[in-house]
C-alpha cells in the first residue's frame, strides 16, 4: 500500500502535466485563428466601434480562459483542497475582472456595448463547443486527442487506446 493511501485526498496534490493548460493553449490558438473573422463581422454590423469592441471582447475571453487554467494548474500542484478553494474564489475574481474590464471602457467612444456583449457570449460559447470536438478526456490522453487520432470516431479512439503499445 502506498503512503498516499493514508493521506486525505484533499491534502494530495497533482504533480503531473496539467491537461487544462494544454486545452487552454489550443483554445487560445483557435480563438486567435477565428478572431479576424469575428472582428470583420462586427465591423460589417456595427462599424469601427464594433470592430474595436469585438477585439476587446475576444481579448477578455481569451485572458479569462488563460487565467482560469492558470489558477487550476498552479493550485493543483499545492493540493486538491487548495485547487477547489482557488477555483471557487477564482470564479468570483474572474467575474469581477470581466466586470471591471467592461466598466472601465463603457463610456469610451470606440466601444459599442451591444457588440462587446455579443462577442463575449459568442466567443466564449463558440470556442468551448469547438474545443469539445478535440478533447479526448480518456485515461490515455487526458487532455487533447492526439493529431493522428483526430479524424477517427470516438469509438475508434477508445479502441486504439485500449490496444497494448
Amino acid at each position: 500500500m502506498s503512503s498516499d493511501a493514508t493521506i486525505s485526498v484533499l491534502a494530495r496534490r497533482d504533480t503531473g502535466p496539467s491537461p487544462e493548460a494544454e486545452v487552454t493553449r489550443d483554445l487560445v490558438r483557435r480563438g486567435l485563428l477565428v478572431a479576424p473573422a469575428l472582428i470583420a463581422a462586427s465591423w460589417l454590423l456595427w462599424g469601427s466601434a464594433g470592430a474595436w469592441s469585438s477585439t476587446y471582447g475576444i481579448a477578455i475571453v481569451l485572458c479569462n480562459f488563460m487565467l482560469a487554467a492558470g489558477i487550476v494548474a498552479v493550485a493543483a500542484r499545492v493540493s486538491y483542497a487548495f485547487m477547489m478553494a482557488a477555483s471557487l474564489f477564482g470564479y468570483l475574481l474572474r467575474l469581477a475582472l470581466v466586470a471591471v474590464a467592461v466598466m472601465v471602457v463603457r463610456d469610451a467612444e470606440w466601444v459599442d456595448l451591444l457588440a462587446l456583449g455579443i462577442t463575449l457570449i459568442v466567443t466564449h460559447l463558440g470556442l468551448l463547443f469547438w474545443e469539445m470536438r478535440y478533447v479526448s478526456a480518456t485515461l490515455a490522453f487526458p487532455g487533447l486527442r492526439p493529431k493522428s487520432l483526430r479524424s477517427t470516431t470516438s469509438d475508434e479512439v477508445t479502441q486504439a487506446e485500449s490496444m497494448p503499445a
Partner: protein
Amino acid sequence: MEALATIARIAAEAGDAGLDAAALKANSAAASAGQAYGLAAIGPGIGIGIIFGKAIESMARQPEAAGMVRTTMFLGVAFTEALALIGFVVFILLKYA
C-alpha cells in the same frame, strides 16, 4: 385593486421626489439589472461548487483518472461560467446600452 394602490403610491412618491416617469423607469431598470446580474451569478456559483465537489470525489475514487477528470471539470466550469457571463452582458445592456 391593490396593484392600482401600489401604482398610485409610486406615482405619488415620484411626484414628491420631483421625479418624472422616465427617471422612475430608468431607476427601476437599473435596480432590475442589478438584481438580474446577482441572480444570474448564483446559479453558476452553485453549479461550479457541485462540479468541483464531484471532481474531487472522482479523483479520490480513481486517482489515476485525475487528468481526465480535470479536463472534463475545466470544460464543465467554463460552460457553467457562460451563464454568469450571459447575466453580466444582460446587466450591461439593460443598464448602459
